[in-house]
């Protein structure tokens, strides 16, 4: 018996649609990154592996989240945060790997991981322990606490250690790549709070009546942009850097 024997995808359900496309896109991106890993210079292989791992872990979670959503119609909050707890620190690893050649220390990696875990744990408490019917004060408190972690990562990417190391690398490709990733953090990661504010008690939910089903819609869109986009930026750095080395 296949999944579609017991579950149907409603034609007017964009969330189910994005769960399916998200799953396939993540899986396709993983295959791409794993295969392309063999075509880049040695120093970029680990970065490509991490990119592939990010999308592969997400693909597996999307496989389960898709089924969970179709079977229950509920937000797969726990699965979502398990996915993020693994993949977001891996995105921080990408920052570390890109700037390692310019002298990034392991402490940078731990600081970024700590900030990302802070951001996710606060977000998880805000969402998973939201009182029945929703509470604005609960949503605001944990939302603001989570934002502190985000602001720290944003600062590190634009002005802090990561930005300074990229500048010191004297490598135009790395500089451009790190700046592009910083844009992902600024714009791409900012889609997540829109989803968060759609949960019961969230501002978009109470002020504009945006239903809690939109939480997953925004999260799915943000995941596709950020996880695959992040990987593609890293891939582009690796390919451009290789081409530059060959030309020289």
């Amino acid at each position, binding site marked *: 018996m296949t999944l579609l024997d017991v579950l149907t995808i409603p034609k007017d359900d964009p969330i189910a649609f994005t769960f399916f496309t998200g799953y396939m896109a993540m899986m396709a991106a993983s295959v791409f990154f794993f295969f392309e890993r063999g075509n880049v210079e040695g120093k970029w292989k680990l970065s490509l592996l991490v990119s592939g791992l990010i999308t592969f872990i997400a693909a597996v979670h999307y496989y389960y989240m898709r089924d969970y959503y179709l079977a229950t119609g509920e937000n797969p909050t726990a699965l979502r945060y398990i996915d993020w707890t693994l993949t977001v620190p891996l995105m921080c690893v990408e920052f570390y790997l890109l700037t390692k050649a310019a002298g990034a220390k392991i402490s940078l990696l731990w600081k970024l991981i700590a900030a990302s875990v802070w951001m996710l744990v606060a977000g998880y408490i805000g969402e998973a322990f939201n009182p029945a019917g929703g509470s604005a004060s609960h949503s605001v408190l944990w939302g603001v606490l989570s934002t*502190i972690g985000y602001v720290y990562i944003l600062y590190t990417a634009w002005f802090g250690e990561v930005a300074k190391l990229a500048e010191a690398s004297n490598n135009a490709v790395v500089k451009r790549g790190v700046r592009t990733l910083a844009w992902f953090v*600024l714009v791409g990661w900012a889609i997540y709070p829109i989803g968060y504010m759609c949960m019961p008690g969230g501002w978009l939910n109470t002020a504009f009546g945006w239903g809690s089903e939109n939480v997953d819609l925004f999260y799915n869109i943000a995941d596709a942009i950020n996880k695959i986009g992040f990987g593609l930026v890293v891939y582009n750095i690796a390919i451009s850097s290789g081409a530059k080395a060959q030309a020289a």
Partner: protein
Amino acid sequence: MTKATFVFISCVLLSLPLVLSAGQISIETQLLICTPFILILGIPHGAIDNTLYLRNNTISNTAFISSYLVLIAANIAIWIFLPALAYLIFLLLSAYHFGQSQFSHHFSKTSIAEQALFLFWGGSLLTGFVYFNHAEISSIINNNIEFSVFRNIHGLDLTLYLLVALSTLTLFLLGVLFVRKLIKLEAILMEILVLLLVMASFYLMPLLIGFSLYFIILHSFKVLREEYNFLKKEEITSSLFDFTKLIAPFTILSIFGILFLYGLIYFDFLGLSYGYGLLVIISSITLPHVFVMNRFYNLLSRKNLVETMS
């Protein structure tokens, strides 16, 4: 992204949920929240106009302060006899000044196109502020007889047309400057993002809090940083403490001046409302400040210091 932009984005993200969940915030409470920040950052950014203007200039401090006071007096006179004209001058100069400080780190030289961009960007900002807070501003205008002269300027339809026209012109000029390779695409995207965020904060936040967030962080904090970095480079100040000492006298004087004028309003010597008095005071200190800052940014251009100041 400048440091001021980063602080602005962070403050909007962190304060927005708190402000939105607080419900209605009275204008008095908004004033209580915003005043300390205006005193700490807003007023000081104009408190060293004399130091900046006298740099590479032959004019004496006394002559500068006299001219400054004459301009203020002239502006007050215009407010007394031609309030609509005074208000229009205030809006135009403020628009240009806000635009100039916003784009100060992008252009090493300013031609007509850049100057038009300053005016249109600032104009978009001010019309956006009025449009997104129209109900509150209309209520202030309708409740104070002195403001009746501005009623026509701030009609909802006219404000919307102006907002659309000025924003379109801003985008068009950014496009022109990009084609002429005077600004990078990344800088344009950042400026669009910032303008959208400013507009969102005007729309989502109460009148004074929304404007103060822009004025204190994106404008005053940025200008203060530029002033501090310039004076440090010129070896006039060597530390933040030195800089604080430099800005302290005129900051304190301005605060006492404002308190004195408010005393005059309180004891009804001037026959004005607080809101109108505040508007006249702000406009009068803005007028000479705009000219000083224009010269300051030209000085930065001449010394090739534009990109390193923000």
